[in-house]
């Protein structure tokens, strides 16, 4: 049994209570529009949650990354790592909304939904049971459908929500189908039991087991934005409120990876199939399509949407080579954390630009460096970190990822091609990151400086310190990642 003070339960208590209480308070207060009041409450709840996760780490209450447990949830370092990354993004979103939601109605519901979705994401990372995972998955997804369509008078927001919901429903169905298949094959929904069952499976049933793994890849791949399950993503990211896009791109995507690492990677190890090739092909396809499509985009949200598809491809490299190099999953986790900060900050910056200048077209960003200097600097640093320019934090995670591919090539001949594809794609991505930078700093006449939202500045400063600081001195994060990464070997099997 989990202790009552274990991290996932406490997070449910904190975030759940506040999440449910917010709409009730709003009804009781009988007033509209006091956005910052609710934002502060949500912000406080998230900070307390982060503090608790951190405290659990510091006070050694967290078990090393176990992956398996008899319970439905496990309080391990892997889950804690994801919880921290996801909570950072949730904080970004909340802080960014201080300003963004000022002109919109029903803020209480909005923040409540963010908190509930956050619980879902965090629980996905902590789950060790398929049913628990599915419940958490839905808890994460359903509030975001609403949030994407939150601008109900805006047609593109509606279209985005509809597409997102359609695909969300489809992928949920696919996941459920995968779960039922694996339950039928092994007689359990506990992930550890399932994998043990797979390992002892009659070879004539392998195709069914593979079908269920394929279902999981497709179902989670929808959230991760893997090609070819990505097509909803640009439309949704573009139409959704940019603060919510930050949440989708930087957080729910990461929950997809958490689930994939827990289930797919371990499951395929047990099945002893060459799934590295499948993930490798998906990785190369994903990053190439993402980057090539991003190059010609005119809308900055859409461009970054494609860029986040490309990043899912990079992260997948680590998963693909995981059984051949211990660095693989470390690289993925590191990139997940960095991407959460980089993309989160970039989309929050866009939210700031949208509220102050009401532009998203890239040509309209001319001279932004003079109009909104701090926001622009934050964007540039995030973009360069995304491209992996040293000495920013994004550089080290890419070094680890591509290094793991080279490391794996000793036993997996074609793995070095993953590194080559990754490096070429990073170079290609600089083309459009550089293009935005050029627009902001080297074009335009003498624009006047406008007032930048304080909340956006806060997010920018935090992300700049994070990206530059841990870029120059990456050691603490490297150690944290090493601690949080599960060790893949059949010996650890339950």
């Amino acid at each position: 049994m989990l202790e009552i003070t274990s991290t996932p339960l406490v997070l449910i208590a904190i975030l759940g209570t506040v999440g449910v209480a917010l709409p009730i308070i709003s009804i009781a207060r009988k007033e509209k529009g006091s956005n910052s009041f609710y934002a502060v409450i949500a912000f406080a709840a998230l900070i307390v949650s982060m503090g608790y996760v951190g405290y659990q780490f510091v006070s050694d209450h967290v078990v090393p990354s176990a992956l398996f447990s008899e319970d439905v949830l496990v309080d391990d370092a892997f889950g804690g790592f994801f919880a921290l990354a996801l909570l950072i993004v949730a904080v970004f979103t909340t802080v960014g909304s201080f300003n963004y939601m000022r002109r919109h109605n029903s803020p209480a519901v909005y923040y409540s939904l963010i908190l509930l979705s956050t619980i879902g994401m965090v629980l996905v990372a902590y789950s060790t049971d398929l049913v628990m995972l599915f419940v958490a998955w839905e808890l994460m997804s359903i509030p975001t459908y609403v949030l994407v369509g939150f601008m109900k008078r805006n047609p593109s927001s509606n279209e985005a929500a509809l597409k997102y919901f359609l695909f969300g429903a489809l992928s949920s169905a696919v996941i459920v189908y995968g779960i039922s298949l694996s339950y039928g094959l092994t007689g359990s929904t506990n992930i550890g039991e399932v994998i043990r069952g797979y390992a002892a499976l009659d070879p004539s049933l392998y195709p069914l087991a593979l079908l269920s793994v394929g279902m999981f890849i497709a179902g989670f791949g929808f959230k991760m934005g893997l090609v070819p399950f990505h097509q909803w993503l640009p439309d949704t990211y573009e139409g959704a409120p940019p603060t919510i896009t930050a949440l989708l791109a930087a957080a729910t995507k990461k929950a997809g990876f958490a689930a994939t690492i827990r289930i797919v990677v371990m499951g395929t190890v047990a099945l002893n199939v060459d799934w590295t090739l499948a993930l490798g092909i998906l990785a190369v396809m994903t990053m190439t399509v993402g980057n090539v499509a991003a190059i010609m985009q005119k809308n900055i949200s859409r461009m970054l949407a494609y860029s986040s598809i490309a990043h899912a491809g990079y992260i997948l490299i680590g998963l693909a080579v995981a059984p051949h190099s211990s660095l693989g999953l470390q690289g993925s986790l590191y990139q997940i954390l960095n991407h959460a900060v980089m993309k989160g900050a970039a989309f929050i910056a866009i939210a700031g630009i949208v509220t102050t200048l009401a532009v998203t077209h890239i040509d309209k960003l001319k001279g932004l460096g003079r109009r909104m200097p701090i926001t622009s600097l934050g964007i540039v640093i995030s973009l360069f970190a995304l491209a992996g320019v040293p000495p920013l934090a994004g550089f080290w995670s890419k070094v680890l990822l591509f290094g793991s591919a080279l490391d794996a090539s000793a036993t997996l001949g074609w793995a070095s091609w993953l590194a080559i594809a990754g490096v070429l794609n990073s170079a290609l991505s600089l083309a459009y990151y550089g293009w935005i930078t050029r627009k902001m700093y080297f074009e335009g006449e003498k624009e006047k400086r406008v007032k930048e939202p304080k909340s956006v500045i806060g997010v920018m400063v935090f992300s700049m310190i994070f990206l530059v600081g841990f870029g120059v001195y990456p050691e603490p994060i490297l150690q944290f990642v090493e601690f949080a990464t599960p060790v893949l070997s059949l010996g650890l099997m339950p």
Partner: protein
Amino acid sequence: MATEAVGLPFEATSTAAWLVWILPFAAAMIIPGIGKLSKQATGYAAVGFALMSALSAASLLPLAIEGSEIHKQITWIEAIGLKGGVLADPLSVIMANVVGWISFLIMIYSTGYMKGDKDITRFWFWMMFFIGSMQLIVLSDNLLQVFFGWEGVGLASYALISFWYRDKKKDHVGQEGRTVLGLLDYYAPTHAGMKAFIMTKVGDVMMIAGMLLIFLYAGTFGFKELMGGTEWAVAMNAEGMLVPAFVLLFGGAIGKSAQFPLNEWLLEAMTGPTAVSALIHAATMVKAGVFLVARIGPIVFALGAAGIMADQFFEIVAWIGAITALLLATQGMVNPEIKKVLAYSTGSQIGYMMMALGIAGLSHQYVDGYTAGFFHLISHAMFKASLFMAAGSLLHVVGSRFMTDMGGLRKQMRKTYAFMWAAGLGLMGAPFITTGFWSKDAIFASVYTSGNEWALPLFAIAVLTAVITAFYTTRMIGMVFFGNKSRHIQKMEEEGHHIHEASLSMWVPYGILAVLTIGIGLIGLSTEHGLHHMFEVYLGDSFGIHSGYAKPESTVLPEFLQGVNPVALGASLVAFAVGIGLGYTFYIGRWVDPVRFVNSNIFFYAIHKVILNRWYLNAMVYWCFVVAPLWLARGVFRYFEKTAMDYGMNDGFQKATAWGARVVQGTQTGVSQSYLFVFGAGLLFVVLILLM
């Protein structure tokens, strides 16, 4: 004895070692903020932080004197074994104090010199950045960290040399319209900054190549680690890479210390504010190269104990130093600009230091040459900083960089006159009373007694250079303070400008250094012995380099000169007497007119012209490395870039990418049905590759 620990550096003594270089950087970070509030406050902040940094350095002195050291490391990037750290051993502590205190005095001077400049915030920012970078070099415990400081120094020098980037006529150097080999010998500040940056960068590239070579074999950049074992050196030596690697490292020092053949940037560097010149020449920039050689020299020499001889390395150091010393000293004799004379003099004096550090490795008494070189570094730092600041005062008052526009100033600027004599005597090596004499004498002695096959030619060059040094220093003082007032000054006085002494904040710093030059000079020999003893212990303890034998007691010399080599002493005295005598004849006594003397026969005329044209070195550098590459670049641009690259590669790649993007976008129809279809097909695809 050696306190070594890995961990966070939070103990009191080692904190001081970190603070020495962190404080100036911290100041650089906050100065722009202060500048928003009050421009004047930036100066106080800079002086305050420079003082704190210098005090931190001073707090390390007791440690150095008792011969112990602090070595603290923090793990920087575990995966590739990179560590950062401070190494405060006697060498770096003394250097840190020289840099710290001289910088502090220069900062005080700058508050007066730069008063009213509207870009003052930028000035203080870069000055503090400069000092911080230099202290980083000094206190680093590994080559990589040194390189960071090294590049910081290069960047700051670029920014400060071209500080007056508006390129006004008065900020140029050289005579307008003068050409050498068809190229203008007249440079704007922005050009000068770029020139310094690029020329030193040539050295930096060599240095990083050398560093990486060593890292390849040793797997570490750390000095202590390199001292700790010899396997890496054995391996390098076996493949013949040891000497090349260290010569490449020395290449960095050649660039940074303006040694031949990368010496030409130093002259144009005079476009910066004079305070910057003082900092570059006395404390922060050119001394970095000497310090680097002092850092790596003992490591190389100590390898001798393991049977690995690297004599070629030391021969190259010594000869580069000797050539530079003579080459630049000769040019100092003829140049009409006061700051340029001082710049030539710096290059030449640095050459002396290199010569001493090089000859040290070729003799049995490593510590002799080592001490001599380092002692000269200290004494040079004092008198050269003083001379530069005094020259800055002259520029400030007269408004011209040409000595021909000065003359007869000794009545109006008594203090400057006196201090310039004092510091100038140090540069000349005036016997028995100046630091410059004792340090130069030590160099002569170490060269003379080294027993190397090249000892005599090197000694001859050293003495000849000393003669020339004494001559050009006298010439400078003569042209500025003696004779009649120049037409320029007469005109100024007619227009109502009153020629007056510089302000208090300006003359006090160079006064202090001038007095110190004489003051320490009076006890120069015992200072040298103290330094000698300290380095003897240091080299013995840290590197296992022990002196071979005791110095022979001299019977020829009186009691107070015990330990001085009589030949070297005699040579110093003669060189000083001849140099100052000639200088007096031409420029103070003015018994012979130098212009008429030079024009008296074709031989003198030709020599004068060659020297004045900088031995044609600068022009040749420009022809080979600027003009010719530009031609080549234009050719490549017209016949390759415009054709193959632009129409072929560039357009082709762009079109291909755009086509790819359109194809991908084509699939993004926006129609949900087609998306769902792709999703289903994708699921099938994944299952198929899994089944494969």
